[in-house]
């Protein structure tokens, strides 16, 4: 039965969309998230065959589930190995594929509708990056979704530009490569015009831009209200730059203060994203002015013990991130990531990848061969 005709799916989506519609700062209804999470778990247990096998291996079913923290967590690695969907192949509407090197397996996250994903992405982006303006001029340092098929970031930025960008928004990437001259021209145009600019891109694209500007000794003073959203890691495409140094370089070369720089954390396997709260605070909006990631009302996040995803670490301790994301209605809601994090009160700080211990000598490289 396709998603369009399945009343259960329509009802679930309606409830999730209603929750998202109240926004990141909207009122929370007691028990709403837990009820939805249980119902989604039941739906996915019934319709997602590989996920059901994991649940059976854990001895957890909708009938035996006690707490939502016990919902079996699916490793994001599994998205590289299985088609994790609750609908038949004919129901696929959109697919995100993770980046990777040639020959590496890639995660594939297939959606039967973009409605949930779009609602969540706009709600969070607006709240944390553009809480003060309906539209702003954007400069995107990332290819379009058409040029980077399967890229969830490409999809997100395309849609942000369409709905929240001014018509004169621009892209600083040509044929998948950073167009330094074109980007500089856009930055200088914004400086001349005096209209605030949002520059969005990956960390490695900013490193490339800043290195190029340093070579030319170029600096631009972007107008007040300008801001930066950076995301992702370096993925071997540039040298790694500590965050403080990156933000310092952005401040120096682009004139955007660190408080107006927002880090976005997301992944191919998950429909929702997380942002820093610093920009909201800098604009005088309610919220906590820090870089602790806090889940939106339609997500629960825990920092858990690496050996036991049902055990949350104590406050201040480190572990691995687990998310329960209602936007993943069509795949798997409960995800066990490969990201190390520190629990900070009701949020977390991402520390990097939980890549395993250093392996020396003639034993196997963790991320490469020796796949069993």
């Amino acid at each position, binding site marked *: 039965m396709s998603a369009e005709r399945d009343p259960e799916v329509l009802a679930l989506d309606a409830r999730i969309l209603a929750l998202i519609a109240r926004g990141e700062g909207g009122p929370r209804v007691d028990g709403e998230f837990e009820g939805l999470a249980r119902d989604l778990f039941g739906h996915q247990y019934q319709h997602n065959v590989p996920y059901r096998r994991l649940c059976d291996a854990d001895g957890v079913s909708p009938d035996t589930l006690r707490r939502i923290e016990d919902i079996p967590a699916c490793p994001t690695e599994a998205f590289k190995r299985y088609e994790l969907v609750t609908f038949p192949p004919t129901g696929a509407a959109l697919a995100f594929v993770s980046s990777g090197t040639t020959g590496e397996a890639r995660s594939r996250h297939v959606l039967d509708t973009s409605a949930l994903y779009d609602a969540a992405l706009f709600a969070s982006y607006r709240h944390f990056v553009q809480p003060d303006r309906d539209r702003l001029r954007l400069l995107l340092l990332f290819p379009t979704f058409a040029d980077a098929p399967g890229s969830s970031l490409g999809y997100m930025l395309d849609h942000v530009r369409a709905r929240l960008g001014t018509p004169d928004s621009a892209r600083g990437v040509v044929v998948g490569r950073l167009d330094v001259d074109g980007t500089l021209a856009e930055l200088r145009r914004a400086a001349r015009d005096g209209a605030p600019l949002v520059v969005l891109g990956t960390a490695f694209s900013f490193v490339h831009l800043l290195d190029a500007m340093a070579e030319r000794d170029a600096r631009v003073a972007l107008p007040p209200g300008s801001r930066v959203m950076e995301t992702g890691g370096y993925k071997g495409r540039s040298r790694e730059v500590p965050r403080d140094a990156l933000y310092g370089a952005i401040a120096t070369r682009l004139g955007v203060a660190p408080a107006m720089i927002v880090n976005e954390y997301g992944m191919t396997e998950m429909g929702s994203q997380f942002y820093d709260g610093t920009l909201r605070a800098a604009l005088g909006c309610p919220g906590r002015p820090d870089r602790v990631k806090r889940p939106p009302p339609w997500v629960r996040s825990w920092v858990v013990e690496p*050996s036991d995803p049902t055990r949350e670490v104590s406050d201040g301790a480190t572990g691995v991130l687990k998310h329960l994301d209602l936007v993943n209605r069509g795949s798997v809601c409960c995800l066990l990531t490969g990201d190390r994090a520190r629990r900070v009160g009701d949020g977390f700080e991402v520390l990097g990848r939980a890549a395993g211990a250093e392996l020396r000598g003639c034993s196997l490289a963790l991320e490469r061969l020796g796949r*069993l």
Partner: protein
Amino acid sequence: MSLASDPALTCAFVPDPAWIADRPRVPIPGAPGLVAPRIEGAAMFDLVARLVGQVAARRPSGAAVVRALDALGQRLADPASPLRRRLEPDLASATGLAPALVAAGLERCARQLTAAECERTLALELGDPAALDGFVAVPGTPWRRQARAPELLAVFLPGNVFAAGITALARALLLRCPVVLKMASGDPATVPALLHELAAIDPTVVRGVAAWWWPGGDAAVEEPLLASADVVVGHGDDTTLAALQARVHPPTRVVAYGPRVSAVLIAREAWSGDVEALAAAVATDVALYDQAGCLSVGVVAVEGDAAAAEAFGERLAGALAEAQARWPTGGPARELAAAVTAARRTLAMSEGARVWAAPDQAWTVVSAPAPPAVPFPGGRFVVVRPFAEFSQLWTSAVDDWVTQLQAVALAAPPARAEGIARDAARAGVARVCGVGQLQAPSLGWPQDGRPALGDLVSWTWWEA
């Protein structure tokens, strides 16, 4: 008394301690109380010159080296020897391995250090061991040939399997050339301790040999060494080896030992034998060195159907639980635990998968008819897979672990063993042995399919 408590010793060996007496001492990360000398720049060039000069003045004799290694092996084989009583606690502390496991590993290493093993290795690799000292006959021809050991051999030792370090040391000593061995922080003391022991047995056999720890990639230390060495041996993952290769320039050669895994093949006829003993032997090859190292078992291929694989998986789980009692591990390090969890849960989603695991993740067995390829996490993690015929194993296009096989242990009747071994050889497997023997290779075994000493020497033919 362990080395760590002896203030006179640092994690270093040079033929004359006076050479490094005035060198600064630096702490070794992750090894509390242990320090190493800082030898960089001009001091490294000076040390290299001394090592080369020592060998040029008087090269160790082949017979003396073999005798000394044999004597060392006897001391290693004796649990009551002062050497064993010193090494075991230090190794257990440095590696985190259970003391009983360290003892079992040292006993296996001792078997490599016999005169018979040394002489066999030299004969297999050089034809005539005297080739290192002068021209010898080329078999089947009227010609002669001479082998030339490196002018300076630099060996970057692995840190996760002390046995590999001992093997590398023995092979280097057999060449009787100047050698610098870099210790890894995971095991900074074993090889220097063995060199001190050899010096006490016969100081001539360690002429021109130095071993100590320094931070990997430290250019001030490594650039002068790499510029001086004509052969460099490296152990590590692809990233480590690529970084090393990038810093070595012709004519210096790099011999690289990269990441590999080993497997056990259980033929259907093995079921008529003692399957419990078979499982126990497989568990030994899994648990030794906590599955670190290229000879550790990551996969068991069972000839038969899914039920056969599941039946063996269950027995193996029981055997690993017993091995855990004998050689306890406190579960994988926290950094590894996440990888073990992810691999286990991903494989559990495969159709027909069965999972057995220790509560603390000290070991994991997964049997599945057609499991997806997942990153190998280590930590005594084994996948048991069925194959209707072993021929399918070698031709499976999706199984890139097959192309990375170092060795296979075979449980099969003699009538079939040769055919299976031939297929394994065609697939690039370097070693085929009996079950339970994977972690006891001969000194001269062809790691990564390469000759043990042949890659380190050069030849001159005299076709007169």
